[in-house]
């Protein structure tokens, strides 16, 4: 994680915030040592609860935008400028960094299903590598996003509902160095996740809102 923090600082020179989701290890100390600001949650809120904490911090302190990336090493800090390039080129409110080549067969099927269900034309729904502009930050910091559990379909549908423009851009990703996917952990977890997501989608579905944000370019990643 120290490498990720140092990499982001070297690439963008921006403020790096690490949210410690009530972990028992030295996450906070390691992150601070690497030069990051840390927020320590007194209770574990899960992946999205922790991410939203950072987003609320950014809103409270007047940041112009937020980039989220996983601290497990699968997101390459050097790929972050590509998100800004994509935002500059398309004027999108949200840019998602995806690596479609790295998707497993199960994920491809899952994403095809979710594309059909939500009408959001995205290649990867759970990629944690994202850029949010101020408008998106304001939406995601609100109470409407507080009962979500993952930074995925629920977040994207909330953004789409609020007329945010969402775009994807291909980026390089590495295998995780530590940890594992919280969603694709085991088959029962996946089944439960798909069931939750389906209900979430059915509750949120809106017939007039089936715009299809497209993948920018098609370069191999």
């Amino acid at each position, binding site marked *: 994680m120290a490498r990720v923090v140092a990499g982001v600082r070297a690439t963008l020179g921006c403020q790096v915030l690490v949210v410690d989701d009530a972990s028992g290890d030295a996450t906070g100390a390691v992150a601070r040592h690497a030069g990051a600001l840390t927020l320590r949650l007194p209770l574990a809120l899960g992946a999205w*609860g922790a991410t939203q904490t950072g987003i609320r911090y950014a809103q409270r302190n007047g940041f112009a935008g937020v980039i989220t990336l996983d601290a497990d090493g699968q997101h390459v800090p050097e790929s972050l400028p590509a998100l800004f390039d994509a935002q500059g080129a398309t004027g999108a409110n949200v840019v998602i960094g995806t690596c479609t080549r790295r998707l497993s067969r199960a994920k491809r099927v899952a994403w095809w299903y979710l594309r059909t269900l939500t009408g959001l034309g995205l290649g990867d729904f759970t990629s944690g590598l994202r850029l949010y502009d101020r408008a998106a930050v304001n939406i995601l910091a609100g109470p409407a996003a507080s009962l979500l559990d993952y930074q995925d379909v629920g977040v994207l549908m909330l953004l789409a509902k609020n007329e945010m423009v969402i775009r994807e851009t291909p980026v390089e990703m590495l295998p995780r160095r530590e940890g594992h996917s919280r969603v694709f952990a085991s088959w029962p977890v996946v089944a439960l996740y798909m069931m939750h997501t389906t209900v979430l989608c059915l509750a949120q579905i809106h017939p007039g809102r089936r715009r299809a944000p497209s993948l920018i370019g098609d370069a191999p990643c």
Partner: protein
Amino acid sequence: MLTGQITSAVLGVGLAGAILFLVRRDHLHGPYAVWWFAVAAATFVLGVFPGVVVWLGRETGIGYAPVLPIIIGLSLVLIRLLKLDIDRSKHERKMRRLTQKLAILEQELERLGGRRSTDDVSDEPMG
């Protein structure tokens, strides 16, 4: 040997008494107390005057009247459960937002006070 009338009266009065006791002991607050007070009143009336059920069945056109309190009771339980989950969701949202705010404020406090965070403080004197 108890008659059906006495059994239902004992059950109704017992349940109503237990609920009233809890309401008066302040174990149930505000809207909950009102709801349970109504339930206590209903069990009391239906227990002591089972004829009400027969009369209600005739009025609503239900041939087998005794099933009526069961249907109404189950429906009310379902509504109550639904309300419970709605309240739980509200609490969960509040709890999450409070937790997040706490973490943010704690960080600001450290920054303003110039103090090291709690996990660094242990090896040096407070102050």
